[in-house]
């Protein structure tokens, strides 16, 4: 670093910082976020008083006293802080239980050691109080001295006396309130008396004094009153103090709630002090020195004020306590009203309109200054100054409203009678906070706090510009005042030899004028521009004088004090040095001007430390402090739970009240903790309080994030569900009187955009913490959806699909606002347990359902293309998982949405149809489907080679070896008889109509399932391809008159869509050849999905065919005639024919159930697929027993009852079976022969017939 940087260089370097762009475009909904706070304090506390040699000595002296008093005040405040934050130690220290406990000495020693520093604080508190009372009384005695009684006492000094009075009141109340201090002290005393025999009489004496001091209630007040009474005329002085305070209060000359409340406390306590042996107050009222009615009004407007922290006081109680109190004189204040003097709910309206107009004004002026790139002129500076001042005043007003409401509520806790929500056993603090506010009041408080913090933050951002302008403005006003107001009367006074007046005026001028500067800059060109400045009232016009130089320096605090005090003395009604009232020597105009100046300059010191004033005006730490109530619990509570803590009550209300407009104020409420922490550390100087605030913040912030995340998730879940809810369904149920509301608009966006919430010096990325929780919630929702599916039959896959769609939409909506949510597919895979296992939970459960429920228990209905559960089941399904126990939010978001979706899903719950299969294809993808089909094939294999084969063998054994087709001449009745006779044995096979059918049904189910799955997959793929068409360069043929035109149009369209043709684009822009190759491959894969040959069903059938080919039992081996078996019962279709013969028989009694009722079309599907795959289709059609019977009966039309079978009924049934069979055959034929159109393949050539003698020879050759 170069050590020789000049100041100018350094400053220009700092100015360069302004040009750096540091974007932080988050919505500003947080209180003033300051990671680094720099404070400069130019208040010297009169340290430089001796430098003002030109001033009148009397005021210089007064400044000395002022400085002393200020020091004492701050010491007093520290004592107050100590007492307020005093926590009982004696409850924590062990006590020697009896006099002969062996370790009692050690115990006592420890007690003394621990408590000694605390007790020494008490000692110094007592000493301080006694000295302060003495010092105060001395001062009063000095001022009330008969010689001086009519002398002028400055306003600032009277106010300092007032502050002193306030301090005494506060200290005394604190001392009265804190029982724990007395307990701790007596513990200490006992312990120390035990240890030493108290040889030191001084120590004993001190101890005794302190004990008395602490034990006597109202000790400070009474002592003060006692001493004051001895001073003659003290009430006159107090009367001045009261008047000045009343004046300040009435004209709102305060800039922080503390000051405002202090005035009232001072008035009340002074009245109490005044009331000595005689009814002084009444007397003074008669003398018109005081106006009781005026004070009465003041007390009425402010019934309750905070005394200290959460301690409240009714100022009027002081007055009431005085011995000469006459209720009749205080008509307004005497009766307590049962309502708070601030109606916060109504007040918020006016506050909001103030806020709006102020913000508008603020923005206007700020923009004006910002757009013209030059230093502001005088009028702008003046405007900004008044803007700053009114900003602080507004802050102060609003904070007062909040603080006073809170105070009143603390003093007037609710009870179970007034608030029904308040339980009977609610504790005191709970009744004062938690149950003490109506929703409207909470809303109002939240809004006001948000406005306070918001305005504070807004002012804070422009604070440096504002204070710059303020200083410029003050400088100009000050210099102008000397030039235009002081000079003239000064010359007159010199001329008329009014020495005293002249000397004071001269002194004022000397102390504030910047004479040298004036000389140097007289010809400053900058000043000339100002001549055109608007001319306002007299005070304003004077300051736009060209002769006044400009400077950005504020007068020093002592300097301003000297000038103001001297000017005040000039226009005062009282004597000022000597025996004259100087006011009479000035003309009225000058007096007017001086008083205007005094009024204006009263706020200047506050404006010079703008940042601090702003902080003080909007300081709401009081909402958190609860030492008083903690003391009241007598050790029952170490700290109150967060439910009773105001900041959390308000924050929680925002999160639970369903009022979207409040949500953006949430962070402002959390800032109350910042206030409390700041106050604990810098005003109370208490680490332990800070730690408690911190602990509460940790807890609350967790809660806050938890609740917020839940709200965000619920909101977006409901939104997604509503968007996906069928519109017609919604309209239908609306017509029948049920309304499903869409979630109301919520303003989470700006809150969620916060990336650096400042909380107790920490910076929290709200978006991230909420993201994390929402991520978990999404995962849980997906898990719940899958779990629910696992606990239900296969038909609920539609619900699962819908749930996952909802979650996907919810995820899409959420990822717009939360930036670190994992991709949906990853979450889904994780919930599906498909990340590091080959099969997901869904696939496994689908297979489970197929295996245990669907295949054995469902029947297919060919006309609806749906599977339904059979009326009688042969296989019992094992128990499924228990459904998950999670909230509605993880399903559809709310109760009503849940009901709506359950209704929709119910429509799908009784069957398995296209929707279900489509859902399966969507959820399982190719991988899952492949797994399922593979498993189904294995099942088929087991079924065929195990069960069905066994049945087939059994049936063959029972069938006649040969069963010829009887001639039609016999007539259909004879035919039936023939078959009945021949197949009698088969009919007695016990498993024929049960197990055998069941097995065939299972086979059929698997085959039809596979066929339907293929259809669904095809539809889904077509849909996919359709959507992808635009990106894969697939352009549909445009309509045109001729081929040429069509070509032209096609080329045009291709050119148009080439811009979104993915592969081409990647080819063009990607520097990586590999990527282009991958893209090409991917496109090929996409396009070729539907290409022929990739048919799962066909392959499924082929695989079954292979299984069948492995065994002769299905075909009966090579036919003996070399062509095919004709009458021999060795092929599969014969078995099926036999089965069909029995199935077609009509029922003999009503209790018998038809097979189609039990097995549906699945049975046929199973049997006929085998026939088709074995190539026995034609033989079946020709040689089937039933078909033959049907053909013959068609011709002869006979009807008879044979062996209990009615022929006509049976034939009718056969006809129906045949129709169904034909349908199934057509489907299967189509599927199998779709891709071998070559007719040659299907023609089998035979050699010419051979004589039977050579048959064996021919067979060998074959």
């Amino acid at each position, binding site marked *: 670093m170069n050590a020789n940087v000049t100041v100018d260089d350094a400053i220009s370097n700092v100015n360069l910082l302004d040009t750096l762009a540091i974007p932080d475009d988050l919505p500003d909904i947080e209180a003033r976020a300051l990671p680094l706070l720099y404070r400069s304090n130019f208040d010297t506390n009169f340290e430089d008083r001796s430098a003002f040699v030109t001033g009148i000595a009397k005021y210089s002296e007064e400044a000395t006293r002022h400085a002393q008093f200020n020091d004492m005040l701050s010491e007093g405040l520290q004592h107050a802080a100590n007492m307020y934050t005093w926590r009982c130690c004696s409850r924590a220290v062990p006590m020697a239980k009896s006099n002969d406990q062996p370790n009692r000495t050690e115990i006592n020693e420890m007690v003394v050691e621990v408590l000694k520093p605390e007790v020494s604080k008490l000692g110094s508190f007592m000493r301080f109080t006694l000295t302060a009372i003495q010092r105060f009384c001395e001062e009063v005695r000095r001022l009330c001295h008969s010689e001086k009684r009519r002398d002028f006492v400055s306003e600032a000094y009277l106010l300092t006396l007032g502050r002193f009075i306030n301090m005494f009141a506060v200290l005394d109340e604190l001392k009265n309130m804190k029982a724990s201090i007395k307990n701790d002290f007596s513990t200490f005393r006992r312990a120390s008396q035990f240890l030493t025999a108290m040889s030191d009489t001084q120590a004993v004496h001190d101890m005794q004094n302190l004990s008395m001091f602490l034990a006597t209630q109202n000790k400070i007040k009474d002592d003060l009153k006692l001493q004051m009474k001895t001073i003659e005329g003290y009430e006159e002085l107090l009367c001045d103090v009261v008047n000045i305070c009343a004046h300040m209060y009435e004209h709102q000359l305060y800039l922080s709630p503390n000051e405002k409340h202090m005035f009232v406390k001072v008035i009340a306590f002074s009245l109490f002090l005044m009331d000595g042996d005689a009814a002084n107050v009444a007397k003074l009222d008669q003398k018109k020195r005081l106006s009781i009615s005026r004070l009465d009004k003041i007390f009425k407007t402010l019934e309750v004020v905070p005394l200290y922290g959460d301690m409240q006081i009714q100022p009027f109680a002081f007055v009431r306590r005085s011995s000469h109190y006459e209720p009749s004189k205080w008509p307004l204040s005497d009766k307590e009203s049962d309502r708070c003097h601030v109606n916060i709910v109504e007040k918020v309206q006016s506050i909001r309109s103030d806020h709006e107009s102020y913000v508008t004004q603020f923005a206007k002026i700020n923009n004006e200054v910002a757009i013209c790139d030059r230093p502001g002129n005088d009028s702008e500076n003046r405007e900004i100054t008044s803007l700053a001042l009114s900003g602080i005043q507004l802050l102060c007003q609003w904070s007062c409203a909040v603080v006073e409401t809170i105070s009143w509520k603390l003093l007037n806790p609710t009870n179970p009678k007034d608030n029904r929500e308040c339980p009977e056993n609610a504790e005191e603090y709970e009744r004062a906070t938690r149950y003490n506010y109506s929703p409207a009041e909470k809303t109002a408080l939240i809004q006001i706090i948000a406005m306070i913090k918001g305005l504070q933050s807004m002012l804070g951002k422009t604070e440096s510009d504002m204070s710059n302008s303020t200083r410029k403005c003050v400088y100009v006003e000050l210099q102008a005042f000397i030039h235009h107001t002081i000079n003239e009367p000064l010359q007159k006074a010199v001329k008329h030899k009014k020495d005293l007046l002249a000397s004071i005026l001269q002194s004022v001028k000397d102390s504030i004028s910047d004479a040298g500067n004036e000389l140097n800059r007289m010809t400053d060109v900058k000043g000339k521009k100002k001549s055109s400045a608007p001319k306002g009232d007299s005070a304003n016009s004077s300051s736009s004088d060209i002769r006044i130089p400009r400077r950005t320096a504020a007068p020093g605090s002592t300097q301003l004090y000297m000038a103001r005090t001297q000017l005040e003395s000039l226009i005062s009604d009282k004597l000022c040095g000597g025996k004259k009232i100087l006011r009479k020597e000035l003309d009225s105009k000058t007096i007017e001007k001086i008083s205007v100046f005094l009024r204006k300059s009263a706020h200047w010191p506050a404006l010079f430390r703008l940042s601090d004033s702003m902080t003080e005006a909007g300081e709401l730490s009081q909402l958190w402090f609860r030492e008083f109530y903690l003391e009241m619990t007598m050790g029952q509570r170490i700290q109150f739970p967060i439910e009773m803590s105001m900041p959390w009550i308000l924050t929680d209300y925002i999160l639970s009240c369903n009022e979207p407009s409040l949500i953006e104020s949430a962070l402002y409420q959390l800032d109350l903790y910042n206030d409390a922490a700041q106050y604990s550390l810098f005003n109370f100087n208490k680490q332990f309080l800070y730690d408690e605030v911190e602990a509460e913040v940790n807890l609350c912030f967790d809660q806050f994030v938890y609740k917020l995340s839940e709200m965000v998730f619920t909101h977006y879940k409901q939104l997604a569900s509503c968007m996906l809810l069928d519109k017609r369904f919604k309209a239908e149920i609306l017509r029948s009187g049920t309304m499903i509301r869409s979630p109301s608009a919520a303003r989470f966006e700006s809150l969620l955009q916060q*990336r650096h919430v400042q909380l107790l010096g920490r910076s929290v990325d709200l978006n991230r913490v909420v993201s994390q929780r929402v991520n978990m919630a999404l995962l849980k929702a997906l898990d719940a959806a899958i779990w629910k599916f696992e606990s239900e039959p296969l038909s609920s896959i539609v619900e699962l699909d819908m749930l996952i769609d909802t979650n996907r939409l919810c995820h899409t909506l959420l990822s717009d606002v939360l930036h670190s949510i994992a991709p949906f597919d990853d979450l889904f895979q994780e919930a599906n347990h498909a990340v590091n296992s080959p099969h997901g939970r869904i696939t496994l459960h689908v297979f489970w359902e197929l295996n245990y429920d669907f295949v054995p228990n469902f029947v297919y209905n060919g006309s609806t293309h749906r599977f339904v559960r059979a009326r009688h089941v042969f296989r019992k399904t094992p128990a499924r998982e228990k459904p998950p126990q999670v909230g509605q939010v993880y399903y559809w978001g709310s109760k009503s949405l849940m009901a709506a979706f359950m209704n929709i899903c119910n429509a799908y719950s009784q069957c398995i149809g296209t929707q279900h299969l489509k859902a399966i294809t969507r959820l399982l993808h190719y991988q899952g489907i492949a797994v399922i089909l593979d498993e189904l094939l294995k099942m088929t294999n087991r079924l065929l080679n195990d069960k069905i084969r066994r049945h087939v063998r059994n049936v063959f054994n029972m069938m006649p070896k040969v069963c010829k087709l009887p001639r039609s001449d016999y007539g259909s009745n004879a035919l039936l008889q023939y078959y009945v006779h021949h197949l009698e044995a088969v009919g007695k096979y016990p498993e024929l109509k049960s197990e055998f059918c069941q097995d065939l049904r299972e086979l059929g189910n698997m085959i039809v399932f596979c066929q339907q799955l293929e259809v669904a997959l095809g539809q889904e793929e077509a849909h996919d391809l359709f959507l992808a068409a635009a990106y894969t360069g697939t352009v549909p043929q445009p309509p045109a008159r001729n081929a040429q035109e069509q070509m032209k149009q096609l080329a045009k369209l291709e050119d148009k869509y080439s811009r979104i043709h993915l592969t081409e684009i990647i080819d063009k822009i990607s520097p990586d050849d590999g990527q282009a190759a991958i893209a090409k491959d991917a496109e090929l894969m996409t396009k070729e999905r539907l290409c022929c040959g990739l048919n799962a069903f066909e392959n499924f059938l082929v695989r079954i065919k292979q299984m069948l080919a492995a065994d002769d039992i299905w075909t009966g081996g090579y036919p003996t005639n070399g062509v095919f078996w004709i009458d021999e019962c060795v092929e599969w279709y014969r078995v099926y024919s036999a089965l069909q013969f029995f199935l077609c028989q009509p029922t003999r009694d009503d209790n018998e159930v038809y097979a189609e009722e039990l097995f549906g079309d699945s049975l046929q599907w199973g049997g006929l697929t085998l026939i088709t795959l074995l190539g026995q289709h034609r033989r079946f059609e020709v040689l089937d027993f039933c078909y033959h019977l049907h053909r013959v009966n068609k011709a002869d039309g006979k009807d008879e009852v044979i062996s209990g079978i009615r022929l006509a009924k049976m034939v009718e049934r056969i006809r129906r079976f045949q129709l169904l069979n034909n349908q199934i055959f057509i489907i299967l034929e189509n599927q199998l022969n779709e891709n071998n159109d070559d007719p040659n393949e299907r023609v089998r050539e035979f050699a010419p017939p051979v004589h039977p003698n050579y048959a064996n020879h021919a067979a060998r050759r074959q």
Partner: protein
Amino acid sequence: MHASEAVQQQLKDDWDNREFEQIIADNIKNIANFLSSFELSCRTKLATLSDKLNLLERKVEFLEARVTKGDTLS
């Protein structure tokens, strides 16, 4: 009884010094404010970056888990 030249000079010096102090204080304040807003701005940007890194990290973890299917113990 005008103030002497010396006193006047002192007064002027006083004003000058105060202005100087004020300017220095203001500039330090500006630096402090700059640092504050710089920090906030950086935090925003870092948060955005961190999101991206987090997502990538998650993705890598996810892919790793997919690749090492079954034999996660190795």
